[in-house]
């Protein structure tokens, strides 16, 4: 169904990038989910005799300093990357959607009450706020997702609020109100679906950023804890060996870039497709 909608709505030129993006994201997600079926090798098993072995056809990404296969670590690390991205964006939507809907619909004092504290959260650079939160609450996969959700909630709320403000003055909303629709029905059935476009685009951008930030936090030592495979941790480990074994730093980085690129392409395509007025004019 989605496929047909995409095919019908997208002019051929947009379709290429969007579909490529979906393809990249889909492939990565599938490999991550099926990780242990695709690659029987363990991502955490240590084999000193293979330490720092260069890439071969059988092991195209080579081995790290503890003799672990980098390919199977990358694939398992995608579970963390994508898991953190999905969880943080999901949580942010769960919190930000209602906040933005209420703020945008109510306006006035209630709007101020909701948005002012969120503005404070947005007054810090995202990565700084995430680092500060991690420093207080500790490290680990769940906490990374939670910190990112805190960073993202005001962004989602602001986008939703702006969309609601734009939509609620439309004639069909007045019409529904005149017909006696109750407020919850008005908001959920008439306003929310028409405000969904920017939220969807924002969500895919946030997915891309989440992958970057998770990797950054883990790289800095305030994200995922070892021995959980994480792309950022792999880069941090590889730094010490980058002269003898450059594959230790090259492949995890390429892996991060591929995932981020995928989500950015999806976001780009969605933006052009759903919002032709704001199209980047590809």
């Amino acid at each position: 169904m989605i496929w047909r909608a995409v095919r019908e709505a997208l002019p051929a030129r947009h379709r290429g990038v969007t579909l490529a993006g979906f393809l990249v994201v889909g492939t990565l997600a599938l490999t991550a989910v099926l990780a242990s079926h695709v690659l029987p090798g363990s991502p955490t098993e240590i084999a000193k005799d293979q330490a720092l072995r260069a890439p071969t056809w059988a092991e195209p990404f080579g081995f790290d300093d503890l003799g672990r296969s980098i390919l199977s670590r990358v694939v398992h690390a995608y579970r963390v990357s994508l898991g953190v991205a999905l969880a943080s964006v999901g949580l942010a939507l769960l919190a930000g959607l209602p906040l933005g809907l209420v703020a945008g619909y109510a306006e006035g004092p209630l709007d101020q009450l909701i948005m002012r504290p969120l503005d404070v959260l947005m007054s810090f650079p995202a990565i700084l706020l995430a680092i500060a939160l991690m420093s207080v609450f500790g490290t680990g996969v769940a906490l990374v997702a939670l910190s990112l959700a805190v960073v993202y909630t005001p962004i989602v709320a602001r986008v939703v609020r702006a969309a609601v403000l734009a939509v609620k003055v439309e004639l069909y909303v007045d019409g529904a109100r005149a017909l006696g629709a109750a407020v919850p029905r008005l908001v959920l059935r008439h306003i929310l679906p028409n405000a969904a476009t920017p939220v969807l685009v924002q969500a895919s951008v946030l997915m891309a950023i989440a992958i970057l930030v998770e990797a950054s936090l883990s790289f800095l030592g305030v994200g995922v804890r070892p021995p959980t495979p994480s792309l950022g941790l792999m880069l941090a480990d590889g730094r010490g060996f980058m002269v003898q074994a450059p594959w230790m730093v090259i492949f995890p980085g390429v892996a991060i870039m591929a995932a981020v690129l995928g989500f950015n392409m999806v976001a780009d395509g969605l933006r052009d497709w759903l919002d032709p007025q704001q199209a980047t004019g590809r």
Partner: protein
Amino acid sequence: MILYAARRLALAVPLLFGMSVLVFALMRLVPGDPAVAVLGYKATPDGIRALREAFHLDEPVPQQYVRWLGGVARGDFGLDFRQNEPIGRMILDRLPVTIELTLLAAACTALIGVPLGLLAGGRRGGAADRAALAVGLVGVSVPDFWLGIMLILGLSLGAGLLPSGGWVPFAESPIENLIHFALPALTLAVSRAAVLGRLTRAAVLDTMHRGFVQYARAKGLGERAILFRHVLPNAAIPIVTVLGLQVGYMLGGAIVVEMIFTLPGVGRMTLDAVLERNYPVVQSTVLVIGAMFMLVNLVTDVLYGVIDPRVRRR
């Protein structure tokens, strides 16, 4: 104009207050006794007592906050218990490094991003446009800490062209100073330049449709003159705005870049403090970087009003 700037400034005051409350509250949420957390394994009963006294941890929390805020307002962030040095002094020593890095990176961003966008937007759909779009999309997706590592691997360890880290004071040797900033600034600039390039292209395309451009074309002006004399000045408003926002984001990115290139800036100070669980320092640097981020956004806002008089009336 002054009224517009004043109104913007007035909005910043409650925001700053909110930031200080958040930072203060966050550090009080650290599980366990903050005094033990700060002193770590070196904690002795005497040390803990001294620290509790120095930070007035036995007073009610609101009173602690007021005392802390009063100090911060006077630039007194208290004493760093590990280095036995005033935190305000430490921040002041490291701030110039972060500011220089950010400004150099902003210059690189403008020098890469704007020509890229002009090249793409000037000939829509051409080979240059497609190439610039692809470069932009990839550039946005490159993790900057990885780019930094790759640059070190290729340019300093591989080719031996530039130093892989370290810092020389500007007063000591301006040239050495700039050489040490080259790779960090470039690392910080690339993904922001990609964003700016995409935006410049969109702004150029948007302006191209305007009546005055068609008029210039009708009177026989060359494409190059049209692009530089008519399109660019009018596309400048969104370009300057986004560049201003980018400078703000660079303050966050600087944390990672300073760490990779071992630059003694405020970002690295923050990270070191986080890893050592040195909460008084974390609290201070987070507030300072946050305030700078807000200040940059404020200046961008006001600048926007200067360039485009229509904004002021809103």
